[in-house]
């Protein structure tokens, strides 16, 4: 029925490669996420490996349904526990996230790791003021008095450059514009000094000009506070702007990963090449990813071969046999494509 997800290579195999950072803040190994219902199993994430160093920004790029959000949510164990099967390992600041008990998980969420969501309108509780919602987070992790938490909330609103912050504290989410709402969301995420920030398309729902402002703010705060950051986006331009490294996801796997400049200059994987080419030719950034012909595979029944093969212009018979194993270059790049031979790798350097 369902094709077994191809086993990813183990951590030992990749030691000394792009993933082999001793001082990693995040180490995700062989992450598999399935959603199991009585009718079907959705293979949303199928063996994902990556790491993030403190202060580093990793952009996860990929079209809709490629498993970006699921990966981020798995890292905070925010997926519905009864339906979700998570395998592999996730270590954040040395903690084994998948093994944490409820209490430790509560400490990690919002303390060590924070998340910003795409749609600030629905991601904030509509019946509490933003001041209350930020103060609540502060109280949860730092304790202290309500007044102190509120004072901290005010500081945070000023930090994210919300005008008239003192007045905004008592506003409800619906009383703010989209941009201000997202700033409030960012303030809440930063309230307890996280070492890792997970941002799931934080600018997608905003107007273009507001998008840039929020992006600049995020980049500044990320640098000032030295947070490791995983930033999910559809937008290559955004990725080029903010990322240190890029990971391109397709059908629940990372098909290419590497330093942002290298990947954008000379993409190794045909999928990444397609993404880039469509941006160069097409003017519209919003439509860039749709420009590759065909549609992504059905995650309920993944075929054995390379998941991109049906849409790939360079497909060969080998592609249908098995999902290609990751291949690494000396420059800390990785791609999963049969066409990447040592010669091709050398040429790309």
């Amino acid at each position, binding site marked *: 029925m369902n094709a077994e997800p191809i086993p990813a290579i183990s951590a030992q195999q990749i030691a000394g490669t792009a993933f082999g950072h001793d001082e990693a803040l995040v180490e995700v190994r062989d992450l598999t996420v399935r959603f199991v219902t009585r009718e079907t199993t959705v293979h949303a994430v199928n063996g994902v490996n990556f790491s993030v160093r403190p202060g580093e920004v990793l952009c996860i790029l990929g079209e809709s349904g490629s498993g970006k959000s699921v990966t981020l*949510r798995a890292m905070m164990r925010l997926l519905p526990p009864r339906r979700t099967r998570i395998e592999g390992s996730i270590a954040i600041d040395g903690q084994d996230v998948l093994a944490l008990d409820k209490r430790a998980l509560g400490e990690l*969420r919002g303390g060590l790791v924070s998340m910003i969501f795409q749609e600030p309108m*629905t991601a*904030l509780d509509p019946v509490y003021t933003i001041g209350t919602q930020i103060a609540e987070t502060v109280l*949860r992790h730092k304790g202290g008095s309500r007044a102190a938490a509120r004072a901290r909330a005010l500081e945070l609103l000023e930090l994210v450059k919300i005008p008239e912050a003192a007045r905004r504290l008592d506003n409800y989410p*619906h009383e703010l514009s989209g941009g201000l709402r997202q700033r409030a969301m960012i303030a809440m995420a930063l309230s307890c000094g996280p070492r890792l920030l997970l941002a799931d398309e934080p600018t997608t729902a905003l107007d273009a000009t507001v998008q840039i402002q929020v992006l600049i703010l995020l980049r500044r705060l990320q640098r000032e506070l030295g947070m490791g950051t995983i930033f999910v986006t559809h937008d290559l331009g955004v990725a080029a702007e903010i990322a240190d490294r890029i990971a391109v996801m397709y059908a629940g796997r990372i098909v290419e990963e590497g330093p942002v400049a290298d990947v954008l200059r000379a993409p190794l994987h045909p999928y990444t090449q397609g993404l880039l080419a469509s941006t160069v030719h097409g003017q519209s950034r919003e439509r860039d990813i749709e420009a590759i012909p065909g549609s992504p595979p059905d995650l309920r029944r993944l075929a054995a071969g390379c998941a991109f093969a049906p849409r790939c212009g360079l497909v060969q018979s080998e592609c249908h046999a098995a999902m290609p194993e990751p291949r690494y270059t000396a420059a800390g790049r990785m791609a999963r494509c049969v066409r990447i031979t040592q010669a091709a790798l050398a040429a790309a350097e």
Partner: protein
Amino acid sequence: MLAYIMRRMLLAIPIAFGVSVVCFSLVYLAPGDPLSVILPADATQEMVAQIRHAYGFDRPLPVQYLFWLGHVLTGDFGMSIATRRPVILEVTGALSNTFMLTSFAVPLAFGLGYAMGALAGCFPGRAVDRLVTGAAVVGVSLPNYWLGIVLVIIFAVEFMALPATGMGPKGSAQFSLLRWSDAQYMILPVVTLALIPVGIIARTTRAAVAEVLNLDFVTTLRAKGLSEIAVIRHVLKNSAPQVLAVMGLQFGYLMGGSILIETVFTWPGSGFMLSKAIINRDIPVLQGTILFLSMIFVATNLVVDLLQSMIDPRIRRS
């Protein structure tokens, strides 16, 4: 907020006006001539005209309405045709008897229904949920007058633990809540009455809580590190406006007194009185009761609206 309260109160005025017009027209909507009850069968034309004039029936309708409204506003609803007592006394007496039941039935029903619904909503699809949903379906579909009779058979007839019907051994006039010999008469009607809204409130609460639990912001709350209890507090507050709306309606229905239940237990409340007034074609009593009950509905609605807008500020804007 204050402005909103004022606006809502002003909005209630046309509703109250509409209700009063409907109550007034009841006399004309009811089949037959309202005078036929008072007049002897062999009344002469002159007598009819005289009485018509005396009751003001010969004046134009709007004038009649204004006269009627003037009386009503000063508490004069006329005389009951059946008992010859002022309608206002009849109605307030019956309402206070019903209120005695509802003041126990409402906290019981709302508390139980809410607790069941919230519990089920927090664990959708789990065993508690199926249990509560099942119980609510049974509760909603059982005819409660039947349940009342069954309770009477079990507790009054079989075990002889509680009195079957009536309002105290010496009748409603001497009834006192503080005497157990009287108060025990309330137990069966209160329980029966309470069972009507339990199922409805449990189902509404369950649906509202389960719906809110699926909203995006709940993930944010969890991502902040809040405990599951703190998350549920947010969820309950968010689902409260929906629950309050249904509770307000149910409160209104219960104040109307269930005709069937008050009849089964011969409890002299508003429902019992309504049924008597209908049978006796006692239009003034009917008018007075319906007007009072409608005003209770309007007032309840107003209170629910204000509570909702206090909980959810988005409601204030529309």
